[in-house]
């Protein structure tokens, strides 16, 4: 059904990848720029294997990219992969915006009425 189409049943999409709070922490940490794995381990206070596991999931869905620099693996955010999530929320946002546009109209009228009545004495 359409209702659930936005969240596909597959385990390999961005929606599932960001459903895990720790993975969102990793993404948040990478917003400021690329970081080596060790940095992320320190920052999150998790073991290296666990951090690597989360990074692997994020890499599989394209949310992060990795490059090797000497003996270090450096990760960076790939914002483009967040677009499906962004689009998903955008749609909901638009439906609220339509309501609020109308609310603007109601408020204009209420303001006009108050001015004509000499203002309220709240």
């Amino acid at each position: 059904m359409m209702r659930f189409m936005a969240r596909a049943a597959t385990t390999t999409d961005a929606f599932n990848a960001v459903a895990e709070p720790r993975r969102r922490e990793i993404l948040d940490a990478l917003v400021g720029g690329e970081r080596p794995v060790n940095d992320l381990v320190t920052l999150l206070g998790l073991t290296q294997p666990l951090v690597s596991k989360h990074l692997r999931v994020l890499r599989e869905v394209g949310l992060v990219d990795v490059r090797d620099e000497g003996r270090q693996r450096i990760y960076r955010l790939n914002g483009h992969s967040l677009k499906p999530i962004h689009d998903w929320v955008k749609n909901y946002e638009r439906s609220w915006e339509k309501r609020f546009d109308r609310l603007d109209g109601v408020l204009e009228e209420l303001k006009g009425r108050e001015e004509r009545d000499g203002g309220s004495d709240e």
Partner: protein
Amino acid sequence: MVAVTSNGTAVVTLPTDTQILITREFDAPKHLVYRAYTEPDLIARWWSGERGEVTSVEVDLRVGGTWRYVMTANEGFEVAFHGEFREIVPNERIVTTEVYEMPEDDPMAGSPEAEEGALNIVTFTEADGRTTLTTVVECHTMEVRDAIINSGMEGGMQEAMDRLEQVAVSLH
């Protein structure tokens, strides 16, 4: 300060797995935004947005009181929501439950999550004669939260997809 005449744009974010945060600024003092938000004849003028026509608004604005809004969507079906006020601070804050009255064929219909709905925490904050309306939608589960976000796809989007499907089928 530069005079601001244009209105804000709704911003929706997902602060946690079970929350939705909706923020919007209005070019009006908060006592007017509060009125537009709580008086039935005013609610009827904006609540459906462009998705249909409001056919009924009942509001018993007191703690423990209930509300119910009904609209006929552009596609012809009826959409109704109801809730119960948990906290009311006039011109400042409203806490209310919000339950979507699901069609029986909805996969989530009858589930405890669906019956309980969500908790909405609405705050009105005024600065320089403008009001920021903040709504936190607190859901019981991520599934409910996601279903609410998906509801934005009903109406226009749903219809467009249905039409697309029909066209695709006709090409076979």
